[in-house]
């Protein structure tokens, strides 16, 4: 120990100094950040209201939602309060507008006070603004009036003016209503058009383009709907028609347009005789070509007329051009060598000159002593026609002159072949040769078929008892085909050949239908596995007889004809035309012509179940035209 007093004094002073410093120099935060931000300036605002006719006082005519937005100010509305006569009502802020509803049916008649308070963000960015304690307070009030007194109108008139349906009425000073324009177009109610501006006293109907329309102008307010005026008009917008021009091309034409054609369109869909959908502006007049209809088809055109933007008020127009027959409707036809056409109807037989399609002559069944329509059978060279008369006689005649009648009595056959127990007997004609042979079928308690020599009046061949399938005889009378089997998959026929005065079997062929070619050297057979299968067509050379008559001929050519063109468009019939050497294959929608030599399709003619012969197409409803 030896601290001197001096040193002790210094030690004490240092201790006091350190202690003082120690007490004074603890860190204390003292810096501040003061923002130069200034307080926002006061603002004045106006409003954008969803009802363009809004006024103060506001006449409330129906439950209404009002939306108030700040005009030229995109500051956010933070909150709002709406009061009706001092009582707060529901409101919501949506897309920076305040929306609330007023319902006159829940308010008393008379005046009501609406007070609106909007708290709007100042966007100053100050401390108070960021904490939501600073905003603009915007107040606005207006009066709502419920007035159930309807307005009075002194006049109303309506009619077509400048091609538009226009309605005019006397004005009114009242504003406690809205106008409703009501329309019914062909019984279909259209949406009401609302006019909120009560100063308006004139309405131009934009969508009316013709037809029947019922209209009504109504003043609608709280507790009333007053009819200002009403009426009905019906106008044809233009003269529309379809007709054939000088070249025979059908055309759709219009003229004398009555309505204002501004923005009016004609719409023709492709369900009509046009290639594609068509939209044509309506002009005072115009025309368009249409597709040529198939033979015998009527022309129908359906189109819509409408003004753009008002398709619901379209006028549907239907035009019709019937097909005009150029020959008699027929049940049977035959084209003869001299460009003549024979038609058989229910009552008569007609003959036409095909050069100009002019009726030359007619022969009634009554003149032949026949009391109903019968089928006529022609010889292959078309020089003679035969028809079954009454009783046991068939009649032959010259189809080119409707004369040279011959009568052929076969009653003796009936007496010979009729069964004792049979109550009745009858004959039917099959086919004829050019040499005076005919195939007949007979029923007299049992069936027989036969070859009958017309000249000699004798039966040259008789089938076994019970056979009712009539033979098909060749044009030269040398052969006939006799179908023997009727099982669908296995139909066959025997070929008979005349040797001396008798017919003998020389072979068999397949098929269910048969025809001889014009020079009688071939047989064409047609067969199907089932009604739903395609048609097999085979060609047999008659001169290539099998060595054994019980054997089949061998076919030289073969072609399959489709049973359908698809979509239930089925095969109706197939005929052989000796004039053109075509097979005429008739479907529901088209006629196809196949060259019988090359077995190639050469033409396809659209049309419904068309017949064909000698380059003419026909329809039984009474139409004929040359193939183009």
């Amino acid at each position, binding site marked *: 120990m030896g601290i001197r007093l001096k040193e002790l004094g210094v030690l004490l002073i240092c201790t006091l100094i*350190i*202690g003082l410093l120690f007490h004074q120099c603890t*860190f204390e*935060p003292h810096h501040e950040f003061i923002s130069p931000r200034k307080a926002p300036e006061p603002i004045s605002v106006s409003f954008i209201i969803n009802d363009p006719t809004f006024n103060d006082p506001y006449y409330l005519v129906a439950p209404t939602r009002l939306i108030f937005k700040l005009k030229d100010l995109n500051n956010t509305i933070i909150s709002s309060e709406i009061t009706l006569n001092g009582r707060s009502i529901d409101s919501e802020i949506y897309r920076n507008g305040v929306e609330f509803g007023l319902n006159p049916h829940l308010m008393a008649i008379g005046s009501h006070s609406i007070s609106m308070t909007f708290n709007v963000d100042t966007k100053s960015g100050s*401390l*108070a603004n960021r904490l939501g304690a600073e905003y603009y307070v915007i107040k606005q009030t207006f009066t709502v009036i419920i007035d159930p007194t309807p307005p009075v109108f002194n006049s109303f008139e309506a009619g077509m003016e400048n091609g538009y349906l226009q309605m005019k009425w006397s004005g009114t000073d009242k504003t406690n209503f809205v106008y409703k324009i009501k329309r019914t177009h062909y019984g279909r109610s259209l949406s009401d058009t609302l006019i909120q501006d009560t100063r308006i006293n004139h309405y131009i109907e934009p969508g009316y383009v013709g037809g029947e329309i019922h209209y009504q102008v109504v003043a609608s307010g709280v507790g009333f709907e007053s009819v200002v005026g009403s009426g009905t008009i019906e106008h044809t917008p233009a003269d529309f028609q379809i007709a054939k021009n000088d070249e025979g091309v059908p055309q759709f034409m219009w003229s004398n347009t009555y309505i204002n054609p501004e923005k009016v369109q004609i719409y023709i869909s492709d369900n009509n005789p046009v290639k594609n959908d068509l939209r044509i502006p309506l002009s005072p007049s115009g025309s368009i070509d249409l597709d040529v209809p198939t033979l015998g088809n009527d022309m129908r055109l359906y189109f819509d007329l409408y003004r753009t933007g008002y398709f619901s008020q379209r006028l549907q127009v239907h035009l019709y051009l019937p097909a005009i027959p150029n020959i008699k409707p027929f049940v049977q036809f035959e084209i003869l060598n001299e460009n003549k056409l024979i038609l058989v109807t229910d009552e008569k037989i007609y003959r036409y000159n095909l050069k100009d399609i002019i009726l030359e002559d007619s022969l009634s069944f009554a003149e032949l002593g026949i009391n109903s329509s019968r089928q006529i059978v022609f010889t292959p060279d078309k020089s003679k026609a035969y028809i079954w008369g009454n009783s046991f006689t068939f009649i032959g005649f010259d189809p080119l002159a409707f004369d040279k009648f011959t009568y052929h009595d076969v009653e003796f056959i009936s007496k010979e072949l009729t069964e004792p127990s049979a109550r009745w007997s009858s004959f039917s004609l099959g086919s004829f040769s050019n040499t005076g042979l005919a195939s007949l079928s007979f029923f007299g308690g049992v069936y027989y078929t036969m070859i009958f020599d017309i000249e000699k009046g004798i039966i040259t061949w008789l089938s076994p008892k019970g056979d009712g399938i009539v033979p098909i005889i060749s044009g030269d009378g040398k052969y006939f085909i006799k179908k023997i089997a009727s099982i669908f998959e296995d139909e066959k026929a025997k070929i008979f050949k005349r040797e001396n005065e008798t017919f003998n079997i020389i072979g068999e062929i397949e098929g269910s239908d048969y025809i001889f070619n014009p020079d009688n050297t071939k047989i064409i057979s047609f067969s199907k596995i089932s009604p739903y299968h395609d048609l097999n067509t085979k060609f047999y050379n008659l001169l290539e007889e099998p060595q054994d008559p019980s054997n089949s001929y061998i076919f030289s050519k073969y072609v399959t004809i489709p049973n359908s063109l698809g979509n239930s468009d089925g095969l109706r019939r197939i005929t052989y035309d000796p004039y053109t050497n075509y097979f005429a294959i008739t479907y529901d929608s088209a006629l196809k012509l196949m060259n019988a030599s090359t077995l190639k399709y050469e033409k396809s003619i659209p049309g419904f179940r068309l017949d064909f012969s000698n380059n003419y197409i026909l329809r039984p409803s009474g139409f004929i035209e040359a193939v183009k």
Partner: protein
Amino acid sequence: MKKLIFIPLLFLITSVMAQESNTLLFRVGIGTYSMKSQKKFQQDYLRSSKIPFVNVHNFPAFPTFGGSFGIRISPSASLGLWAEYASTGGRLHYKDYSGHAVLDQVLKTFQIGPFIQYNINNSTTWPVYLTLHSSVANTNENIRSEIKVGNQTVKESYKLNSLNYTLRPGFMMSRQVSAMVFQLGIGTELQLHGTLKENKDLYFKTSDGKELVAQWDGLRLTFGIGFKL
């Protein structure tokens, strides 16, 4: 309270224990403070607030005050006791025409413990020593927030404290003039940090999931003046 204990205790020790080969020193210095956790807390508050605070104080370097008493245990080495006081703080502040908002974080620490120093250059005029100080450091933090808009004020404050353990390796150069001793020291403060808590229960977590602590780690520069006893 600690100030009232420390000053007389220091005087008493030096008066009773002083010997001619012993040293009593008073030190002042400057320290830098890491305070990562406190800065993170400050940033979290800034991010979560709608207020455009500005960071006006970010736990700056601040003077330290302390002293030591050393006993020579060999011609080259001394052993002793040392103590030190330090403080720093952070502030977020914003003020405009409509009001002001502030977040203050003020931290104070008092540490005491043993030291050892060893002469490394055998100089008698300008001896240089390698020093190692260790201590227990007690930290107090006061967190205060205040928002005033118009006439309305909202305040909140928390008093937290924690205990850290420190180690400070460094160097010291000394010069004796008659009985007076002058020293210049430099060192690095390393600490183990305890969680700052209020009433032993409430503590804060920063957005990285860690508990709020006081990180006094950093550089220390001290200047001491004293006596050979």
